[in-house]
C-alpha cells in the first residue's frame, strides 16, 4: 500500500525532467522543420522555418538523387549481413564454450574475453593494412567481416547457454540425437530472447559504425548512410541547401528511430548488457 507513495518523485524533480525532455526534443524538432523549408528562404533567415510555407521539395530531391538511396541500401545490406553473421558465429561458439569439452576450451574462452578489452583504435590500423594487402577495401566483405569478431556476442551467448538446464541436452543425447541436432533443434529455439537482444544490438552497431567504413570505403558508391551523411556535410559552411541537408539528416535518423521504437525493450537490455560485462 505505501510503496507507490514512497517511490513517487518530488515535484521539482519532475519539473527538471520535463525541462530536460524539452532539451532532448527541441534539436530534433528544429531539424525536422528546417527540412520542410525552401533552401533559399533559409539562406535569408532560418527563423522563417517557424512559419509557412513549408514544402516537400527537399525530400523529393533526396528521392531524385540516387546516391542517398545507394547509401541506404549499403547500410541495409551491411547491417543485416553483420547481424546474421554475428548471431550464427556467436551461437555456435556460445554452445561450444558452454556445453562441449575439447582441449584448450577454458584457455580459448579467456582469450576471447580478453578481446573484450581491446578497443577498436588498437586494431584498426592493422586491419586497414590487412585489407589493403588483399585489396579488399570498398567491398561488402571489408565492411562486414571486422564486425563479426566482436567478442561481446560470444560472451552473451555462452552465458545464455550455460543458464539452460543441462538435463535438456542430456535427455536428448540419450535419445540418440547428434550434437548438431541438439544445438539446432532443441537449444537454439530456447535462446531466442538472447538472439533478439544480440541481433538488435549488432544491427545498431553496424548501422552507426563510423570510423571503419570511413577509412575502408573510399569509393562514393560503397559508402554506408552514416559515412555518406558525413561526406555531404563536409562542405557544410558553403552549403546553399540547408533544408536539403536537414532532410538528409531526418532521412538517416528516422530508420534507426523507427527500429528503436519497435525493438525498444531488447535494445535497452542489450545496451545495458554490453556495458555491464
Amino acid at each position: 500500500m505505501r510503496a507507490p507513495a514512497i517511490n513517487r518523485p518530488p515535484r521539482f524533480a519532475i519539473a527538471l525532467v520535463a525541462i530536460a525532455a524539452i532539451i532532448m526534443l527541441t534539436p530534433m524538432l528544429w531539424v525536422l522543420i528546417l527540412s520542410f523549408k525552401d533552401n533559399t528562404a533559409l539562406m535569408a533567415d532560418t527563423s522563417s522555418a517557424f512559419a509557412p510555407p513549408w514544402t516537400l521539395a527537399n525530400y523529393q530531391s533526396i528521392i531524385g538523387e540516387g546516391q542517398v538511396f545507394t547509401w541506404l541500401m549499403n547500410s541495409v545490406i551491411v547491417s543485416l549481413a553483420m547481424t546474421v553473421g554475428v548471431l550464427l558465429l556467436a551461437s555456435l561458439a556460445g554452445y561450444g564454450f558452454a556445453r562441449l569439452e575439447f582441449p584448450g576450451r577454458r584457455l580459448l574462452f579467456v582469450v576471447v574475453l580478453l578481446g573484450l578489452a581491446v578497443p577498436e583504435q588498437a586494431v584498426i590500423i592493422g586491419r586497414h593494412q590487412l585489407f589493403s594487402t588483399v585489396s579488399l577495401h570498398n567491398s561488402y566483405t571489408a565492411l562486414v567481416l571486422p564486425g563479426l569478431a566482436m567478442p561481446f556476442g560470444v560472451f552473451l551467448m555462452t552465458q545464455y547457454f550455460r543458464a539452460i538446464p543441462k538435463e535438456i541436452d542430456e535427455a536428448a543425447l540419450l535419445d540418440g540425437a547428434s550434437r548438431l541436432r541438439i544445438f539446432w533443434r532443441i537449444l537454439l529455439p530456447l535462446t531466442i530472447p538472447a538472439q533478439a537482444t544480440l541481433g538488435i544490438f549488432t544491427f545498431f552497431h553496424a548501422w552507426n559504425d563510423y570510423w571503419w567504413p570511413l577509412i575502408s570505403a573510399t569509393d562514393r558508391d560503397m559508402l554506408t548512410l552514416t559515412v555518406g551523411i558525413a561526406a555531404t556535410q563536409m562542405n557544410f559552411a558553403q552549403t546553399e541547401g540547408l533544408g536539403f541537408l536537414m532532410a538528409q539528416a531526418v532521412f538517416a535518423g528516422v530508420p534507426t528511430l523507427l527500429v528503436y521504437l519497435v525493438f525498444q525493450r531488447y535494445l535497452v537490455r542489450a545496451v545495458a548488457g554490453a556495458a555491464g560485462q
Partner: protein
Amino acid sequence: MAGSAGSRSSGMWNRWSGALFVAPYLAVFVLMLAIPLVIGIRLSMTRGDLFGIKEFVGLDNFSRLLRDPVFLQTAWNTLHFVLLTVPAMTVIGLALALTLNNQTRWAAALRAVFFASTVLSVTVVTLVWRLVLIPEGGLAAVLAKVIGREPVAFLSEPALAMPSIAVTTIWWGIGLPMVLFLAALQQVPRDLYEAAALDNASRTRMLFSITLPSIRRTIVLVIMVGVILQFQLFGQPQLMTGGGPNNSTRPIVLFIYETGWKQWQLGYAAAASQVLFAMIAIVAMVQYWFSSRKDAT
C-alpha cells in the same frame, strides 16, 4: 558431460568435434582482432608510410610522442573532454533514473525520449547540433535574437568549442547511464524502503542511506564505462570543428586518424593508438578490481 559423450563413441573425432563449433568464430577472431593487434604493435615500432617501407626504430615513436606538443595537447584535450562529460552524465543519468523509475505511462514515454538520441549515428547527431550552434541562423542564435542578445560562435571560440562538443555528447549518450541506473534501481529490495518509511525516514535520508549504497557498484560501472567510451572521442570534433580552433578540440583518436590516414605516418599513428590502448586498459583494470572486490563489505 564429456563422460556421457565418451560412452557413445571414441577417438580423435569425439575429442575435437566440440572445437568445430567454436572454430568459425575463432577464425574471424584471429583474422580480424588478434592479427591486426599484432600488426599494430609491430607497426608502432617502425617508421612506415603509404608504401609500407618500414625501418625498425624500437621505441622511438613513443619517445617522439612524449615530446610532440600536438600529441600532448590531444591527450590533455581528451582528459578535458572526459572531465566535462563523465561526471555530468553520471549525475544527470542518476537523476533521470531516480525520477523515472516507476510504472506510469509518462515515465515510460520519457524514458523512451531520453534514450532515443542514443540510436542516432554520430553523423546525424553532429549535423543536428551544428544547426543548433552555428552563429548564422542556428537555433541558439535565433533564440539569442529573440531575447536581444548577440549570437555566439560556439564552435569557433576556443573556450566554448570543447564544452559545446561535451553538451552534444551528453545529449547523444545520456540514455546509457540512465538505463544502467534504472536496471540497478530495480534490484534494490523494496522492503528496505518500507522499513524506512515505518521509521518516518525522509526521502533524502532514504536516498543517501538506502538507494545510493545499494547501487554503488553501478555508480562505479557507469563512471568507468563513461571514461572508456569518452576516451574514444572522435566523430564529434572531426565533424563539428575539425579539431580546431587552435587544436583545442583535437582528441587522441583524431590525432591517430589524421597521422595515419592524412599524413600516412602509420608507425607513428600505431604508437599513439597503443598509448590510448594502455590508458583504456588501466581504466578497465580499475573497474575490474572494483567489481571483483565488492563483497568485502
